């Protein structure tokens, strides 16, 4: 049963993509990643002439600012794309008028969202690859590739991003607004999750905010697997923490989504 729903969702989504894919989203996201990278490149090479502050290497374990910032921007691209898709699926159904018939069908939400996520992940890998090629031009270099850490980083990131998108999806469905909610989360994540600079530079309140969003830890683990500079014990610790926080997000998101669905259906005509 679960598998059937999963497969049906993937088939449906794939057909939607093939026929009416919002290509502007894809181009927009790759462009955003490009501008972030380009901004970092200008800052590093031209504005500050390659002079990093003394604290940077100590905090990050690397002295390659460009690789640091580019890996951050690629991870940011990944989470933004996941959220744009998974969080918005029920909203899209609401707009397109299919939410009612979807709700009539007896199916488990987990499989539905997972199906969406899986298909999205494949597309996103493609987009991230394009962005990574642009990144290489601007100075992305892999220093110490660790395959096991990399696989762990990818899996944990997918798990955590899924949790974050679920919560965002609840807020979207509840407020029936995507523009304000999604962009607020995206700009906030860019600020507190250590995308282009170590989060240790932030004041206390923002640092706390960063540590309860699992994206922060995912970005750190991914950096450790590609750029090195972090002891193994630290990586394991971060991975366990990210896993725990991600689980909290998913455990909260699922029942909340049920609740939000009910409210959305009640308000649908109004």
């Amino acid at each position, binding site marked *: 049963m679960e598998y059937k729903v999963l497969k049906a969702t993937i088939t449906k989504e794939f057909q939607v993509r093939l026929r009416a894919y919002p290509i502007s989203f894809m181009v927009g996201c790759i462009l955003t990643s490009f501008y972030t990278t380009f901004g970092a490149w200008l800052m590093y090479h031209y504005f500050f002439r390659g002079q*990093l502050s003394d604290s940077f290497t100590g905090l990050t374990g690397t002295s390659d600012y460009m690789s640091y910032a580019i890996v951050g921007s690629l991870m940011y691209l990944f989470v933004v794309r996941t959220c744009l898709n998974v969080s918005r699926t029920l909203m899209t159904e609401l707009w397109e008028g299919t939410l009612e018939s979807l709700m009539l069908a007896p199916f488990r939400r987990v499989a539905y969202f997972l199906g969406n996520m899986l298909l999205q992940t494949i597309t996103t890998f493609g987009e991230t690859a394009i962005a990574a090629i642009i990144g290489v031009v601007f100075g992305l270099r892999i220093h110490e590739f660790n395959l096991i850490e990399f696989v762990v980083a990818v899996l944990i990131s997918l798990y955590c991003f899924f949790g974050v998108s679920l919560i965002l999806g609840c807020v979207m469905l509840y407020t029936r607004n995507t523009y304000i909610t999604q962009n607020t989360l995206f700009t906030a994540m860019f600020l507190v999750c250590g995308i282009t600079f170590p989060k240790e530079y932030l004041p206390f309140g923002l640092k706390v905010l960063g540590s309860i969003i699992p994206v922060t830890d995912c970005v750190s683990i991914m950096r450790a697997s590609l750029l090195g500079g972090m002891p193994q014990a630290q990586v394991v610790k971060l991975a366990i923490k990210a896993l725990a926080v991600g689980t909290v997000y998913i455990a909260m998101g699922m029942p909340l989504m049920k609740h939000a669905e009910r409210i959305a259906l009640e308000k649908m005509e109004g």
Partner: protein
Amino acid sequence: MKYFLKVVWAEAVKQHRNYFNNWTIYISLFIWPLFSFLSAYYSYSAFDVDGTLISYINGKNILVFLMLGYMAMSFFRSVVQSAWNFSRERQSGTLEYIYLSTANRLAVLMGNALSSVFESAIVMLVFGMLIIISNRDSINVNTISLGIVLIIFIAMALLWGVFLNACFLYSRDTDFLFTILEEPMEIFAGVKVPIMIFPAWAKIVSFIFPLTYVLEALRQVMLNDASVSSLSNILFACIGIIIVLLSATLFTIGIVEKHMRKTGNVVLF
């Protein structure tokens, strides 16, 4: 003239009622620019700020330098949003009524830009002023030049808005504006990184944005005590842009009207 101002005012009030009926608008007008400003500020922490090539930037005034950039950008960005909103007039069919009325077209566009420039940027402006006042030791202002630059700044932001609105009278596809004007403006107009140190090709791109010139002038008079004579080149360029924007707007309005008379369709021309 009295009649012209009446139309400007009416359109401004209309815009206000349209977009300020919900508090969530303040999230997009204040929280987003604030977050990007903070991101830019903290990303500077990764660098040795005193090692920059620009003589008038140092560790003390870099906060004001950046704040001026984001404050100025919020004015220019708000008109991009207003232009985007204006295209909804076409979808909801109200553009037709505006064209049926005898209202001066330029006055309508100006009212639209006026309301967005002043209303949308006000929160960011207040915040920026607070930051600047609390860091007043680090700035070096030339008051007379500042007055002149501010007048030019307001005129340019307004006309930039009017021009974008006029473009939308003609074209229906508005999404490209965001792709072209939102994020590139932040990078290329020198909001985060001063354009003086750009490589040549990036400098050429930056000259497209009117914000580039007026932001440079604003920073010079606020941080470097620049006199009017030392800024004469930039100021002349600004005045030139103002003239070009105004004439381009008038020209576009004329073309649109002519085109519409021929095709007879306001909503879907």
